[in-house]
């Protein structure tokens, strides 16, 4: 056990180290401030500003989580607390199936449905012009992709709560909803946070589905109807074509390194939150 854990830590460090070594040339040749906070992306001139990519990654993920979490939570609560066994039998496999659909299918579906809706129905109310390939499209497709994942993990979290605790609350005369609000959510807080962390990490790294609908345009998006370009899409789109341009490979490696760092920092941060919650509630 101990050996395995050490091994996985070693792998993690190794990945980080390799990415870092490969991105060293970029770090050496560019002003660090420029790398992070400017968005001028001209590989031929050797200008690599990652600002727009970092911003896009965070933006799309944020929209996805904000859109996916509330309905996922309600859905999971319904499935674990209210649904009859027949409903559960029908829908549990459906949810599992949804989370198993390959991202590319979500991408195609997003291109065919979400993108036109945004460009024709939604965007005209807010901006002059939008192709539909946008931050919003990326966020929506990503939200729909991670929703079944969040639902199925949350159902696990809720069903792990002992029945006796529900019955204790009910037998004191609480309604089901009161029990959910005051007991179930409280008891599962750590589980809920952990689920969100997992979903966010997944969203950060999602590539194909987002790449297909977000427009892949290197500029800071001014609104959710503008195109954007998250880090994973950048790497996937350009890896393999960068051989002839000096410094390009290192820059893409740096993009991967950034993604790696974002996810590590995010996970470490949420560990801290979880630890705090656990310490405060001890339950």
């Amino acid at each position: 056990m101990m050996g395995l854990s050490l091994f996985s830590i070693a792998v993690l460090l190794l990945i980080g180290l390799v990415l870092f070594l490969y991105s060293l040339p970029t770090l050496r040749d560019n002003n660090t401030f420029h790398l992070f906070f400017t968005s001028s992306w001209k590989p031929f001139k050797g200008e690599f500003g990652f600002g727009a990519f970092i911003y896009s990654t965070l933006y799309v993920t944020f929209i996805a989580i904000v859109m996916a979490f509330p309905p996922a939570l309600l859905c999971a609560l319904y499935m674990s607390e209210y649904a009859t066994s027949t409903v559960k039998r029908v829908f549990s496999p459906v949810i599992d199936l949804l989370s198993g659909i390959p991202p590319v299918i979500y991408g195609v579906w997003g291109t065919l449905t979400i993108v036109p809706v945004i460009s024709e129905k939604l965007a005209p109310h807010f901006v002059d012009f939008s192709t539909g390939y946008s931050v919003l499209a990326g966020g929506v497709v990503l939200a729909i992709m991670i929703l079944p994942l969040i639902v199925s993990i949350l159902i696990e979290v809720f069903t792990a709560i002992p029945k006796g605790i529900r019955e204790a609350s009910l037998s004191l005369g609480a309604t089901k909803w009161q029990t959910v609000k005051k007991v179930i959510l409280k008891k599962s807080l750590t589980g809920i946070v952990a689920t969100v962390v997992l979903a966010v990490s997944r969203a950060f790294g999602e590539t194909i589905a987002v790449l297909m609908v977000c427009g892949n345009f290197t500029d800071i998006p001014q609104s959710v109807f503008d195109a954007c370009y998250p880090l994973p899409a950048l790497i996937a789109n350009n890896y393999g074509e960068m051989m002839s341009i000096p410094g390009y490979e290192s820059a893409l490696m740096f993009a991967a390194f950034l993604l790696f760092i974002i996810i590590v920092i995010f996970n470490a941060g949420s560990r801290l939150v979880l630890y705090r919650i656990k310490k405060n509630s001890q339950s």
Partner: protein
Amino acid sequence: MRALSKDIVMNDTLTPFIDAHKTNKTHLTVENLNVHIYGKHILKKVNLSIPEKQITCIIGPSGCGKTTLLRCFNRLHDDNSEVKVTGNIRIGNEDIYGSHVEVTHIRKKMGLLAQRPTVLPMSIYDNVAYGPRLYGIKRRRKVYEIVKHQLMAVGLWEEVKDRLKSPAVRLSIGQQQRLCLARGLAVEPEMILGDEATSSLDPLASTKVEELFVKMKDTYSIVLVTHTLRQAKRIADYVAFMYLGELVEFGRAEEVFNNPKHKLTQQYLDGSFS
């Protein structure tokens, strides 16, 4: 007097039944209760009158339906669509399964103690305050008084008064069970239902809870499912013996223990099976 079940098994129980009526007012009446779970007949035509302000112990071998019966009283089967309950249960004059009756209203009348303590994921204080707050008691002073009063009633106040805000799970198992009792009492029930409420406790903690039951029967009607005959002998005023989903014998404790009417009861008391 209502005609009781015509089962041969049931006939013998008639005498103690009338006896119960003479001496104590009936608090909870069970008539022709049948329970099916997944189509299996689990409780068969149970008729029973729980006397007011007495301790009634339900005994019987494992799997005979004691827990199932107890959970019928506060409608804990409601949420399981595989459990079909038919028959009539009244608390006082109120039909527990009446179509117009709010389930929360019924549950408030009974405090339930589970086999293992089930503290809610909150502080000691909030556990006891949980019920009163549900019923709209908001004033801090009032809530505090209720909490203090009930913690004193279960003899927990001195032990926890300095750490009311700490999580309830940090208490010992015995303390947790008394906390659960206090929590149940805080909604001012009429009855206390215990399902082997002392079986997960050590002897000392178990004795404490037992003593509480005896003390509290001045105020509440108490129904206890118990596996330990010795416990039933110590504290029961009335005893119900169940076997394979039927109520075989019901009567005053000394009657049932010293002079059981039914052969099965005799055998169970002798330890011929358990």
